[in-house]
């Protein structure tokens, strides 16, 4: 018995490779979430819209309970939860739905250049439909100011949409203040809170949020299920449906409900509500340890505000080392980079560029996203791997050599290619 226990302890110490530190992209499903979902695939597989037999009732019960769990996490009423396929759909529904519903009031929308593509590309689409969009530029630390938003508000402004926490740099915008300002001006406020819900306290009442998008798979739930929170009173908000069909979800989003997904999201929301404080305390310690260790390296820089930030995210540029090359050197660690080479467009991260970062710093960035499963051993391993890789690649980098010789890289005549 003692021996068995010893073996188990040793097994727990063995670290599985690669280490996953890309939790801003997606998270592992919590086994407790999966357990809650499984019966809804096989036993309780009914259609939640089937009103006249127990299969439907059972599915509807599952959905109703999940709605309560989700509403409790964000301080909403359960009737204000509209299920979608994910945050991208929620963002599309919020922006397009508001634009169509409130067209008589105006056509002006305010957003920021650091938003996710699901917002920016939807805005571009709306511009073709006659919308006027103001794109606010954050300061070097990634933060917007209340004054910036106030200056942009016009009599025909119908919506301000600002993300809660940024997916690349983790910066948290002053949502409560921006939203209060919008309320004062009678303008609707939407927030893409994909990275924030489940990670930090979000309360749609205290924060004055009218519409809010989020998704299950960023908080240990399954992929393919998201929410658009739509305020029901004070003011009562309505969005025009973007799909025609059976009129589910109070007519705002038709389509048979993804019952297992919804149940999973409900469970994930409940766990987040109960465990957020203890998770955050552990995660933030590990994040800070990782960050401080990597920032002791010469010419490494933190991107975005240090203070106003998600607890599980850090984004660091290692100057004179290229991000994709760096990721190849740390192949036992799964992270993401702002380097052009890692994107289909061959453009470096527009978020980092909008902070005023030189392209070369944007190319040299790594984003680390921790989770409730991250361990101290994994952080130790990551610090060592990244430090060794950066040092090795700098020895191979002509830019590092030039920097060390005191050559100003900006004075060099580079050849375009």
């Amino acid at each position, binding site marked *: 018995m003692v021996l068995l226990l010893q073996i188990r302890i040793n097994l727990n110490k063995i670290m599985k490779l690669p280490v996953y530190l890309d939790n801003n992209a997606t998270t592992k499903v919590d086994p407790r979430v999966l357990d809650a979902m499984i019966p809804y695939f096989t036993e309780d597989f009914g259609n939640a819209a089937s009103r006249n037999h127990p299969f439907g009732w059972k599915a509807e019960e599952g959905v109703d309970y999940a709605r309560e769990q989700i509403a409790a996490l964000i301080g909403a009423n359960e009737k204000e939860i509209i299920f979608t396929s994910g945050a991208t759909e929620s963002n599309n529904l919020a922006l397009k739905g508001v634009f169509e519903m409130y067209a008589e009031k105006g056509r002006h929308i305010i957003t920021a250049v650091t938003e996710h593509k699901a917002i920016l590309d939807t805005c571009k689409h709306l511009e073709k439909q006659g919308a006027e969009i103001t794109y606010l530029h954050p300061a070097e630390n990634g933060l917007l100011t209340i004054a910036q938003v106030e200056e942009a508000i016009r009599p025909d402004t119908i919506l301000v949409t600002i993300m809660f926490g940024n997916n690349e740099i983790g910066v948290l915008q002053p949502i409560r203040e921006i939203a209060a300002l919008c309320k004062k001006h009678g303008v609707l406020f939407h927030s893409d809170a994909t990275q924030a819900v489940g990670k930090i306290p979000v309360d749609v009442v205290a924060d004055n949020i009218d519409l809010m998008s989020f998704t299950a798979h960023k908080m240990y739930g399954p992929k393919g299920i998201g929410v658009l929170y739509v305020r029901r009173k004070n003011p009562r908000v309505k969005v025009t449906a973007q799909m025609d069909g059976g009129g589910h979800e109070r007519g705002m989003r038709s389509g048979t409900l993804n019952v297992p997904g919804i149940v999973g999201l409900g469970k994930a929301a409940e766990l987040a509500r109960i465990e957020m404080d203890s998770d955050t305390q552990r995660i933030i310690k590990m994040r800070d340890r990782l960050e401080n260790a990597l920032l002791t390296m010469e010419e490494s820089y933190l991107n975005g505000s240090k203070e106003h930030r998600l607890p599980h995210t850090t984004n660091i540029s290692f100057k004179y080392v290229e*991000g994709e*090359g760096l990721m190849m050197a740390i192949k036992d660690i799964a992270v993401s980079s702002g380097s052009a*080479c890692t994107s289909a467009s061959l453009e470096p991260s527009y978020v980092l560029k909008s902070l005023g970062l030189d392209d070369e710093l944007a190319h040299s960035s790594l984003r680390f996203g921790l989770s409730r499963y991250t361990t101290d051993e994994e952080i130790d391993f990551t610090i060592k791997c990244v430090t060794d890789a950066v040092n090795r690649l700098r020895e191979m980098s002509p830019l590092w050599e030039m920097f060390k010789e005191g050559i100003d890289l900006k004075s060099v005549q580079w050849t375009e290619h």
Partner: protein
Amino acid sequence: MAYSEKVIDHYSNPRNVGTLDKGSPNVGTGLVGAPECGDVMRLQIQVNPETGVIEDARFKTFGCGSAIASSSLATEWLKGKSVDQALTIDNMDIVEELALPPVKIHCSVLAEDAIRAAINDYRVKQGLEPIAEEKSHH
């Protein structure tokens, strides 16, 4: 995206990383690319002025794995070649040898540019005309 074994080999064990004396008349240096594009290659050749044979070649590269592998391979190929032979190295040879995917072809183009730039630097030092820019990349 998965890298070919050869790219991984050159990336993990790069050949001929280093610096030659750029002030020497027998050393040609080519520095191509730009930091904002995410690729900078510096390729150097040391030529025996008697025989015109490249006796040593060194590189340093800021870039992705394919860029590092392309320049590492280029230095291997350059050593022992005459300057004229070196000019026949084509970027598509590098693409083929390293099995580079289409999105990484620019790394091979950069390596070819670096070879030509190094040779031209050497030629100018020797009082010769630089080879005309040939923009016939595949």
